[in-house]
């Protein structure tokens, strides 16, 4: 393997380069909490966590030297694990992976291939493009909306999938996101780091309160829609198709645009303006939710409930109400 620029650890602290740096410097939790030289790491870590909670993108620490960047990343992870709230974990994973993508999308293919290997994928550059091993491709693309990511529309040969450089960066973002979502044991933290955690919890509660969780009485809904609602409420990442299906269905059964938008508020990447625009657009065009065959193809269908469209499910039941 070619020699790697040690500065890459600044941008990609989660890699083995970052790990090696921690080892060689003998960095401990005490250092992270008390070392005066790491003061800016603590400040930036807090900024990154709060940005994750508010749905922003924190880029003020891009200039940090490798050791400080690795320390910042470690503090983000430690504090997030210490808080141990699944909603926060999703927000942090979303934020960190977005931040990663902002940096990775301009990297040459050789660096992306290295990052891919760091994230457990086998990536083989081939001219301007690269081959990704199928299981890794599936792990990454399963969370992505849009039919261009579906395997059936790709050049896939003997267990490898051909992707463009920019697509590779996007896939790696997903791999990092799922990597960050893996459960970690809850650490005990020195007080200065706990203080950061306390502040993050306060902001997290504010965000939670702003999500109108009260959901008016429910109609009878097909299992696929029930599942999508749960996903939305839990703030899980949803594909474009899932969001479209859910919005189109709810609008057709009489929900207002505002009520549908509220449902998406827990989404880690929620943006009021964008969500409102998209939902209103679906409402204005009067789109029907896709039929069951399409939903099966999109992997949204969860069980065969004997109807051809989610709208025909429980028709009689709905009328009774």
């Amino acid at each position, binding site marked *: 393997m070619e020699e790697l620029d040690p500065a890459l650890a600044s941008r990609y602290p989660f890699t083995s380069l970052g790990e090696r740096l921690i080892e060689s410097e003998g960095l401990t939790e005490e250092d992270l909490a008390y070392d005066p030289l790491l003061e800016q790491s603590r400040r930036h870590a807090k900024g990154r966590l709060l940005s994750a909670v508010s749905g922003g993108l924190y880029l003020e620490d891009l200039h940090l030297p490798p050791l400080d960047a690795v320390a910042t990343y470690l503090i983000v992870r430690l504090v997030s694990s210490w808080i141990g709230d699944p909603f926060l974990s999703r927000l942090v994973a979303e934020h960190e992976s977005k931040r990663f993508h902002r940096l990775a999308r301009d990297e040459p293919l050789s660096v992306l291939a290295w990052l891919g290997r760091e994230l457990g994928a086998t990536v083989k550059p081939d001219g301007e493009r690269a081959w990704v091993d199928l*299981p890794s491709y*599936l*792990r990454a693309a*399963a969370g992505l909306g849009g*039919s261009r990511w579906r395997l059936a*529309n*790709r050049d896939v040969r*003997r267990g490898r999938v051909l992707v463009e450089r920019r697509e590779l960066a996007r896939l790696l973002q997903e791999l990092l996101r799922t990597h960050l979502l893996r459960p970690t044991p809850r650490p005990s933290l020195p007080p200065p780091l706990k203080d950061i955690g306390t502040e993050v919890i306060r902001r997290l509660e504010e965000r939670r309160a702003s999500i109108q969780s009260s959901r008016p009485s429910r109609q009878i809904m097909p299992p696929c829609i029930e599942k999508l609602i749960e996903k939305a409420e839990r703030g899980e990442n949803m594909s474009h198709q899932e969001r479209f299906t859910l919005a189109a269905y709810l609008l057709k059964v009489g929900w207002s645009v505002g009520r549908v938008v509220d449902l998406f508020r827990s989404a880690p990447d929620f943006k009021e303006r964008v969500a409102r625009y998209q939902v209103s657009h679906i409402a204005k065009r009067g789109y029907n939710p896709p039929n069951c065959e399409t939903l099966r*193809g999109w*992997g949204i269908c969860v069980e065969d409930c004997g109807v051809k469209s989610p709208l025909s499910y429980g028709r009689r039941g709905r009328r009774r109400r």
Partner: protein
Amino acid sequence: MNPLRAAFREYYALRSRSIFVPRVDLREIMMVTFDGTVIRHVSVRNLESLRAMLAREAPRHAYYSVGLYERPAAKSMAEKGLKAAEVLFDIDADHLGVDECDYGLAWRCKSCGESGDGPSPDACPKCGSQDLERLDWLSEGCLEAAKREAIRLLEILESDLGVSGEELMVYYTGHRGYHVRILSERFLGLGKEERRELASHVSGLSFDPREVFYVKGSALASPRADEGGWRGRVAREILRLLEESGRGKAALPSSVAKRREELVRALGEGVPLINPTPALVRDLRRMAHEIVQARRVKIDEMVTPDTSRLTRIPNSLHGKTGLRAMALSPDELRDFQPLRDAVGLSGDQIRVFTTAPVPRFRVKGESFGPYEPGVGVDLPMFAAALILLKGRGVIP
């Protein structure tokens, strides 16, 4: 003991060596006995105990999990602790929409016992009851259709997923379908969504012709014949049609025929076709759609994502036919004929009374039937079992 169960027991005693389950100690085993009792959450230490258990219980149905568990005998999925799961594809002739699968269809009234040929009427013509039982049958044409589907699945798994030979387990279910499991380590850890993606790939459901043919700048973006997956299959098939039309053998939409030479270069060598007309793009998309529809593998796409599934233990007997759920190599699959090759029960004669019409059928090269309801016939056990287990006869 019920003579049918005795015949099952004899099979499991004589043929126990053919019963195998890879990594059996990590599997959940399930059985349904002849009196209908379901025995779930069983685990065994090794193949020997599995074989002994089957010979002892002589169950009507025997299954094992796609999942590999920490504690396979635990009662709930959470306690079982899923370590990994094989990727399962299920082909069931019932989903193929093949007319041959309706061969020998009959019904019987559960109230008065009246029976008849064909699909069930709304109500029994004799007593008016609506409690009617639909009775299906096996036909060679139907089984052949399921086999063709399984062969196409294996081709796609090899060319697209790169799994073949030892990495696969293929078997006839013993009834109207086939199961294919991917055993390869690298697929064992896939989650539900990833499995769904594989299912919608082989079934072509997520194929979108607009992703394959579209206009980019002033050129037509198109797939190339040397690509893999559906893109390659579509490109090669359209190329074939273009060649045939050149020899006057296939009719093409005029928009496509007009640009024949350019399309051959685009699909064959990737030379961009400039200024495609909207009609050309539309017609190519339509052709792509039709090609995928014709070649897609009609699996039950609800099965693949579910890691808690169980399927029949290889070479165990199917309780609706008495046939063996035979494990097959891809080569064996090509010439495989279930009603000839999957017979596991003996040829001992037994007398059967029919309670519904039995169509003409062939098992192990011998022809039987057709039989009217209410007649007594002496048959070899393997033929009698089909009538008995399909609910069309009883042992007097």
